[in-house]
């Protein structure tokens, strides 16, 4: 096995694994944008393979193919983005299973599993800074207007 | 090559470039503050050291010593990653900025004053790295868990992505003229022809300057962080050195744009009359020093121009910003590209005079067209129904 063949082998392996991972993600994830990213990852796997072949054959063809696939990916991204924006506006959600009534009539419907709600942590509201400590009174008094104020204004 | 040449030499270059860059940024901030002060009839920083010369050190110490705050609800990882990423991309862009190479003594191996010499896509590399700088802005805006930051990040990502297109279009003319994307080759081409490309690419230069201003978010285009609307934009929530990193990156972007405009349009290290020192590929120590000095002076002048612009002009409104990008700058860039390509195809390679005339004719045509048909800047003034004084 020669150097270039091994290099090709390596690129094919990485490309194939990227393609596979993209496939797994596309099949399993439900977020439209993540699904799109996974599709792009499959394209990346193909690009890696093409570049590997380009280096192996010492020609430009592989790279040029990859450039074209890049351009196609850009076009795809533009259309996919537009579609995702429209779908988001219609459903107020990026969940792809909202649109499963587009499937063929004999296909089973995906029933959502019971998702356990994650406990949402209490929001931490900022504390207002204290404007200044109360002055020390020369003698204790029963009730001054300041004490009344402090209940009203929430000072201290 | 020896091991030290492989590893040590780039490390030394990297250290020199980063050190020089940080120092330059620190003192450019002082220069900008002084310039702004003079423009506004003030004196500027003058308390720390003579003429305020130690002010950058004091500022740096302040950046380091201030309290680090991570806002509640912020995504900590991304919040910390954002300034690092923006500073890293801003710094990496300098890897291909060339300072020429020289022979330290006769017979020695020439030393290239570039971190990554011989990258064939030099210019494209700068753009690629620059386009990654958007991540810092977007992440900083999103991770801060603040509306102002989010709005700033969104604005800025739209702005940076939009202005990348005219920026890329504007330099294609230069690439065509020089026949390369390597910055060394571009400078050599200008030195050999005796023309600076500003004369042949006035339209491209105009588009480049505007887009460069927008890419580095300088004042006519500093929508991402405009204080009046967004407090501080994407770095509203950042404090201490994290904010300092954003500031550093901003200035490094400015320096990058200045370097690029000098290299692409103002002949790089070429000056008429200094040719004996800088001629040829391999120069001695003096030649290298002259080259670096000329380049540095030109870049400094360019940065001063940017500062002058910053304190002279008001900010664009957001729709004006987008209008300028998509309806003005991209068509102008395309026109420049077409004119350059046609000239390159049909003219003799050394017929620079005709190219120059063509290019300026194109500018004149644009001015004429804009003067006759432009209504971008002149909306119908809104008046109340009843006439004021009848």
């Amino acid at each position, binding site marked *: 096995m020669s150097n270039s*063949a091994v290099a090709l082998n390596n690129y094919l392996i990485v490309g*194939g694994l990227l393609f596979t991972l993209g496939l797994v993600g596309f099949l399993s994830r439900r977020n439209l944008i993540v699904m799109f990213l996974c599709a792009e990852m499959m394209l990346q796997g193909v690009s890696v393979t093409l570049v590997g072949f380009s280096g192996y054959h010492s020609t430009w063809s592989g790279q040029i193919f990859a450039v074209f696939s890049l351009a196609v990916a850009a076009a795809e991204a533009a259309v996919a983005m537009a579609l995702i924006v429209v779908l988001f506006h219609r459903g107020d959600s990026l969940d792809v299973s909202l649109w499963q009534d587009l499937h063929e009539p004999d296909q089973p419907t995906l029933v959502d599993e019971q998702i356990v709600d994650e406990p949402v942590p209490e929001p931490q509201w900022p504390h207002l800074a204290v404007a200044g400590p109360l002055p020390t009174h020369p003698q204790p008094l029963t009730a001054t207007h300041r004490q009344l104020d402090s209940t009203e204004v929430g000072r201290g | 090559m020896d091991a030290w040449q492989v590893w040590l030499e780039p490390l030394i270059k990297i250290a020199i470039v980063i050190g020089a860059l940080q120092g330059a940024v620190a003192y450019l901030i002082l220069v900008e503050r002084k310039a702004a002060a003079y423009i506004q009839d003030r004196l500027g920083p003058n308390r720390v050291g003579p003429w305020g010369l130690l002010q950058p050190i004091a500022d740096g110490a302040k950046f380091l010593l201030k309290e680090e705050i991570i806002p509640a609800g912020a995504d900590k990882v991304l919040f910390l990653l954002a300034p690092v990423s923006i500073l890293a991309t801003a710094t990496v862009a300098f890897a291909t900025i060339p300072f020429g190479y020289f022979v330290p003594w006769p017979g020695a191996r020439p030393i290239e004053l570039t971190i990554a010499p011989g990258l064939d896509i030099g210019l494209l590399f700068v753009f690629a790295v620059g386009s990654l700088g958007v991540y810092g802005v977007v992440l900083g805006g999103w991770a801060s868990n603040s509306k102002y930051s989010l709005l700033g990040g969104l604005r800025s990502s739209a702005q940076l992505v939009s202005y990348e297109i005219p920026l890329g279009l504007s330099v294609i003319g230069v690439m065509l003229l020089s026949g390369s994307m390597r910055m060394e080759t571009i400078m050599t081409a200008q030195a050999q022809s005796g023309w600076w490309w500003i004369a042949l690419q006035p339209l491209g230069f105009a588009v480049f300057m505007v887009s460069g201003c927008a890419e580095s978010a300088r004042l006519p285009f500093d929508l991402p962080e405009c204080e009046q609307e967004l407090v501080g934009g994407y770095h509203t929530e950042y404090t201490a050195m994290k904010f300092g990193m954003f500031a550093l990156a901003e200035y490094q972007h400015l320096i990058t744009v200045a370097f690029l405009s000098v290299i692409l349009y103002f002949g790089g290290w070429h000056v008429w009359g200094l040719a004996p020192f800088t001629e040829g590929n391999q120069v001695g120590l003096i030649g290298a020093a002259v080259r670096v000095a000329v380049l540095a002076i030109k870049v400094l002048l360019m940065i001063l121009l940017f500062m002058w612009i910053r304190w002279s002009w008001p900010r664009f409104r957001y729709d004006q910003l987008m209008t300028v990008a998509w309806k003005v700058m991209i068509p102008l860039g395309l026109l420049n590209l077409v004119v350059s390509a046609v000239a390159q195809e049909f003219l003799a390679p050394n017929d620079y005079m005709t190219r120059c005339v063509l290019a300026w004719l194109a500018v004149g045509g644009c001015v004429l067209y804009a003067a006759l048909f432009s209504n971008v800047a002149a909306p119908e003034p809104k008046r109340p129904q009843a006439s004021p004084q009848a």
Partner: protein
Amino acid sequence: MHPHEILMAALGQCLAAFTGEMHAGLAPLFAWAGGAGLGGDPGLRDRLLGVVLNRDVFGYIVRTFLILLPAGLGVYLMLPRGLPSKQPQYRRVGAALAAFSLVLICVWPVSEKISGGAPRTVLWLLSGWGGSAEFYLLGIVSLASAVLTITSRNPVYSALWFSLVLLANAGLYLIQHAEFLAAATAIVYAGAILVTFLFVLMLAQPQGAASYDRVSREPFLACLTGLLLAGVLLGTIHYSTSVEAIPNAAKQSVRPTAALARTQMTTARETSALVDYAQPHVANLGKSLFQEHFVSIEIVGVLLLAAVVGAMLIAGHTSESPR
């Protein structure tokens, strides 16, 4: 046959292949164990052993399956499955399994017959570590961030990990002297497409993870599909690029080096297009692009125009659409 039995059989085959390659002495034992799952059919067992020991394409695929099995399991464990709260131990175990699989891919030794005596691995640039360190680094970064892309619960993190995939791939392109492609990937993909998607993501989901990001559709079946695909792909790649597996007649068609390719195997037209790394790269790429693929360029231009117009048409109606 019951799916359970198929699984047992497959596991047995994997074990058999695993051991058959490395420890031929133990192979019958495991093959028998595998065969036992099928009811102790000696004929089947022999056929399995034959498959394993003959190292035909099926044997390669089976061995590849074995290498990839932890990865598949790991990805399954790492995928969001609607577990009650953050359960990092699943993700950690999954990540460990996937990493183990990655390590296996990197260091799993090829038998000496195939490699020609030198200690070599499945994924190994034969020039040695000096030339391959960058590849290893970038490839591992690429694959690991790909796994994290598809398993992150927060889509923003998914997008960021995908940007890392892109950058690592750009590095891989650089190793193969595809400089323009590397820069174009960084500019177009990472700089524009991904940022735009981050933009939409941040507008649509400013809170980060939503409920549908915490569950997957059929993660097990998806991982099984991926495992099958990857196993077949990698096994075939491995088989077809190993010299031993290629018959003598076909061996001639393998072009060992670029130099040999230049002298022997190329037509005149290909020779003109061969890559000479001493020449300016981008200029030649452009020449090739605009001379030999000119029509394709035009078509891509039209495609991009159509995409832009279509995108504007589609997205332009959002304000009027009923919500």
